[in-house]
């Protein structure tokens, strides 16, 4: 990763104020939910990064900030060398074109009154393409890339006339029609049936290979992340706790939380012997975060030192960083209550 990263995130924060009524007016320390709390990462051009974590870990928020669906509270993001907080209209428009997002539920993000053609042509029109022939050509091309073949068969359909997988393909076709550089995919397959998930994953892979897209794949499903992504960043309560090569992280999780996450995934293999790591399944209150390492209250290896941890990422294996102050070998049974 010697070249400039396609996406560079530095010290990103997203805090939501907690509204508790008039009393807040008189409080100095306004309570906030730290949905994303000072994360930094670089994503190389053409890389697929998996953002893993449970609900409330901040993975979706991070994705939405990059596509500017939300404003960050603090921090810097550059895409292809341009800071995201650029002020000029032109720059903002360029971002909208270069960074696209696809969502979990395509049915909710597709306008039910738009045909497939209208859905995909709309971003082209918004970005000033007027030539009807060119629009038709681009739409057909994208549909074909997205695997809806023959494209003509689908152009005049409405979302409700299609299956879930087909709708997600339409959403992807819309996502790529502006030839973006970055694609954020937020749980794009979790609503889909098992038999067609692979298709979408393969499609995303192909988009990277053929169009050189950089991708952030947000998911709670480690299996699909492992299959699709080059690297994985595991988030817990707004912090990145582990980041590294996807296969390495899953095969050799360094952080106790990653270990828990990996061991929780059911495996369709009767011979598989899982490494049992048992934790409490209650995630702490997001407002009153624990001191030190946020995983301390649930961590089976928590030590007094954990209470002063500041989530500094430490390289534990090659290209694999963990925020745990201990290496896996140093982990000892929990000694604090």
């Amino acid at each position, binding site marked *: 990763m010697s070249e400039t990263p396609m996406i560079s995130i530095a010290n990103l924060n997203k805090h939501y104020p907690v509204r*508790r*009524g*008039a*009393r807040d007016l008189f409080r100095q320390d306004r309570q906030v939910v730290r949905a994303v709390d000072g994360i930094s990462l670089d994503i190389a051009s053409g890389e697929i990064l998996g953002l893993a974590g449970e609900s409330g870990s901040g993975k979706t928020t991070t994705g939405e900030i990059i596509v500017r669906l939300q404003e960050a509270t603090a921090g810097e993001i550059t895409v292809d060398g341009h800071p995201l907080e650029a002020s000029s209209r032109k720059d903002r428009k360029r971002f909208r074109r270069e960074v696209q997002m696809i969502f979990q539920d395509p049915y909710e993000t597709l306008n039910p009154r738009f045909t497939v053609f209208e859905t995909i042509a709309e971003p082209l029109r918004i970005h000033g393409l007027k030539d009807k022939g060119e629009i038709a050509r681009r739409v057909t091309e994208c549909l074909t890339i997205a695997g809806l073949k023959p494209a003509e068969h689908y152009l005049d359909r409405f979302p409700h006339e299609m299956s879930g997988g087909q709708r997600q393909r339409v959403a992807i076709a819309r996502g790529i029609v502006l030839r973006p550089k970055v694609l954020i995919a937020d749980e794009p397959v979790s609503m889909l049936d098992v038999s067609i998930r692979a298709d979408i994953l393969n499609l995303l892979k192909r988009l990277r290979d053929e169009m050189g897209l950089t991708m952030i794949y947000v998911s709670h499903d480690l299996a699909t992340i492992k299959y699709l992504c080059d690297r994985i960043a595991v988030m817990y309560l707004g912090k990145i706790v582990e980041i590294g090569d996807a296969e390495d992280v899953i095969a050799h999780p360094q952080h106790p939380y990653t270990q828990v996450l990996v061991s929780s995934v059911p495996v369709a293999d009767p011979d598989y012997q899982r490494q049992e790591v048992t934790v409490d399944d209650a995630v702490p209150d997001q407002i009153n975060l624990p001191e030190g390492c946020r995983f301390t209250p649930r961590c089976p290896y928590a030590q007094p030192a954990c209470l002063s941890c500041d989530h500094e990422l430490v390289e534990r294996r090659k290209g694999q960083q963990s925020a745990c102050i201990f290496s896996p070998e140093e982990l000892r049974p929990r000694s604090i209550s």
Partner: protein
Amino acid sequence: MLFYIAKRLMVMVIMLFLIATMIFLMFRTMPGDPTASMVDPSIPREARQALLERYGLHESLWTQYQIFVQDLVRLDFGNSFFYNRPVLRVIGDRLPATLILMLSAMLVAYLAGVLGGAWMAWHRGSPLESVGVTFSLIFRSAPTFWVGLMAIMVFSVALGWFPAQGMRSTGYTGDTFFEIFVNRDFLRHLILPSIVAGFYFLATPLLIMRNSMLEVMSEDYIEMARAKGLTERRVLYHHAARNALLPVVTAGALFIGAAIGGQVLIEVVFSWPGLGREIVQAVTRSDYPLAQGVFIIISAIMMFMNLVADVVYAFLDPRITYR
């Protein structure tokens, strides 16, 4: 919770003050001065002037407002021009009758509406359901006055079941609250108007309950309740109806204001000695103090009922907590 209520009450006082100011201005910018309808035109001009002075209406608007506010703070609504009595006494004489009729009408409407709405949702698609909806809408849109007269014709004049007019039999003695309101004679007079008013109000709770019930019935916890092997009755009333009640409760508070307004005609057709007619007369006669008083008190009642509804809501729905 207590803090919340206190806060709400505080807001209520401020709101009431603003409303009072608006009402004050509204009446004083209305055409026609109050002496016009009060004074026989044949009396001399000086007399009219003297009246204006007596009521303080010769002062500038600002001075009048200052006096109004000072009185308001002392909860003194002044004297009614027309009745020549303290506004609070005039209202006090009439308000209980209005409130009792309104509450019993709402009781009728809510009992019939909630039970009927739940039943209709449970038997969705049955012919009786559409009969129920049509029936309630007919009562809502038919002129109340006409419905009232028909009810009198049938149940009082033809069948003789209920008295036709008033709140008590002619010449009935007894003046304390209990003597007036807690006896058979009063109840007999109350039944017909509260049923007519109740049916007029019925559509709102009935339809809200039905819709809310339909929504609740598709919830997973209803299927779960069935899967638990509970009887249909228990599922209907303990699980579905209780949850479906929530929006009906909220609607109920908003309903109070509409009810006081909607009740005017009921009071007229049954000669019910309530506040409804007084409101209309006070406005047409430009009896500012009385009209102001009535509106401020109705506003207060509405706000209070809203608060009550919110508290009841919190009581019914544990997900709601007020801070």
